[in-house]
């Protein structure tokens, strides 16, 4: 019997384990939810390249962390579907135009999705709310850090419990190791390259001041490995000030995609366990940018 996109979402809602909460973020953003699904692709961002790869391998449902149309507020893509100025708790402030209809890239993508009858479903908030944060766990695994995990009491692998007793090395060496293990192009580091770092706090995605303060309250943390600061002039300032105050603490910024993509692989594995009817594949979007040498 054919399985529809809505059937898969029903199973996600049943299986997620935290009690599904309706959210303006975790929703269908393109396609017909009652269409038959031939295959599922998971990814950080459903870029045109990811969509083309999905089509080439016969997969017509994309489960992603980000919107195919970039703006975090659904209202910017389909007026009337959400609050333009939704706060961070709703997935980030509305930052795009009220309508994208006049944009050529939007139209190209919208038309590609329609022509290929793709369905895009976004699943972020309920997934992240699992007792063990699957994004954190997957990122640590990808870095080879699972074995160094040293939780600070409480729920292991909770989002705010990403602490690791890493092999002592200089900040520079540690950054090199991370860059290699995650196969990165754009690693950003702050702090004296020669300081020794031994205990890292790891986080993924967007972070705010309260996240920084919470992670730094853990005794002995001398390295923060983060996704993307919600404003450098506020949050990176905090790290720069720690250093100016003489504290030997380093900061490594991975970037949004690098920090979130391993978790999308984890999601593919999870979907496979309860969607046996069709193939499920993780199609990484890949790091979007490069650095001039």
């Amino acid at each position: 019997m054919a399985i529809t996109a809505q059937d898969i979402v029903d199973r996600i809602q049943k299986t997620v384990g935290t009690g599904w909460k309706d959210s303006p973020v975790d929703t269908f953003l393109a396609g017909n939810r009652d269409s038959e699904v031939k295959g599922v692709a998971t990814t950080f961002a459903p870029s045109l390249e990811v969509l083309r790869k999905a089509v080439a391998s016969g997969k017509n449902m994309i489960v992603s962390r980000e919107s195919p149309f970039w703006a975090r507020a659904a209202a910017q893509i389909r007026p009337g579907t959400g609050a333009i100025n939704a706060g961070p708790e709703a997935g980030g402030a509305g930052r795009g135009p009220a309508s994208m209809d006049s944009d050529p890239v939007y139209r190209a993508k919208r038309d590609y999705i329609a022509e290929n009858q793709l369905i895009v479903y976004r699943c972020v908030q309920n997934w992240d709310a699992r007792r063990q944060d699957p994004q954190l766990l997957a990122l640590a695994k990808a870095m080879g850090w699972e074995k160094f995990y040293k939780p600070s009491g409480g729920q292991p692998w909770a989002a705010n419990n990403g602490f690791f007793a890493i092999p002592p090395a200089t900040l520079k060496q540690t950054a090199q190791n991370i860059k290699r293990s995650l196969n990165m192009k754009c690693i950003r580091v702050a702090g004296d390259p020669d300081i020794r770092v031994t205990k890292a706090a790891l986080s993924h995605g967007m972070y705010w001041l309260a996240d920084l303060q919470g992670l730094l309250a853990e005794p002995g943390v001398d390295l923060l490995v983060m996704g993307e600061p919600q404003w450098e002039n506020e949050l990176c300032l905090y790290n720069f000030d720690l250093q100016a105050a003489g504290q030997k603490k380093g900061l490594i910024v991975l970037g949004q995609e690098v920090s979130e993509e391993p978790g999308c692989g984890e999601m593919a594995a999870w979907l496979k366990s309860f969607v046996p009817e069709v193939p499920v594949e993780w199609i990484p979007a890949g790091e979007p940018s490069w650095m001039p040498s």
Partner: protein
Amino acid sequence: MDRVSRRQFTLMAGATLATRELAQGAQATLTAGEVVNRIKKNLGIPWNGSTYRDTFKIGGPDSPVKGIATSFGGNLRVLQLAQKADLNMVIVHEPTFYSDADRLDLVKDDPLYKRKLDWANRNKIVVWRIHDHWHAHKPDGISTGWNKGMGWTQYQLEGSLRDFKIPETTLGKLAKYVAQKLETKSVRVIGDPSTRVSLVSRGGHNLTQNMDGLRRADCIVVSETREYDSFEYARDTVLSGAAKGAIFISHASGEDLGMKEFAEWVKPFVPEVAVQFIPTTDEFWTV
């Protein structure tokens, strides 16, 4: 001493004393509030009294001013450099206490906040921010300073401070030029390095600005924007087949030079004390 007559000595001592008194008098009369008043008077636009940004962050209007430093951020490192240079009033474009509104409720128990504030108070540092009004100044002081520093004033398109027609180059070469000129190591680029670029637009922090910029120009140069929207939009622009590119620089790299411009602008109407730009610069490095 014996070669100077008593009368001459008395005169000299008197002169020295008078000079010192004059200097001390001048210092005692120049307050941070007076500096701010002169800035408001010279801006040429009405002051928006409801700004939460352009206010005192450390010290207040009565704080005496020995010298003025200007910089992008209220970074502790900048304050330390200002203190060493005896420039105790620091005028910044961006926050001091880790949030846009410098909200004290977010940091009141924070050990770093306390340490920074204590150090600044002990050293009689006063911090005042000018963000909204320096952007609102005609022309926008931040863009003006950046364009000068980049050597791009000559390439500005008529009527715009944020659109340029530069001599044709490639995206890769332009990215290197930007990195060298702004002394930043954290430049990130989307697009094929061999893409030819001539029309360049500054883009902005928000997705809408970057969508507009990429539609108009061959390449956008953006100081701090979000990866989840603007980076992904730039990626899709390139994937859609458009021969375009995007260069992303740190927030400081995009605006620091605007506060160099501010120092030059302040100097003529605050002649009593030294006014000096202290770069915040980009503190990120890469491996």
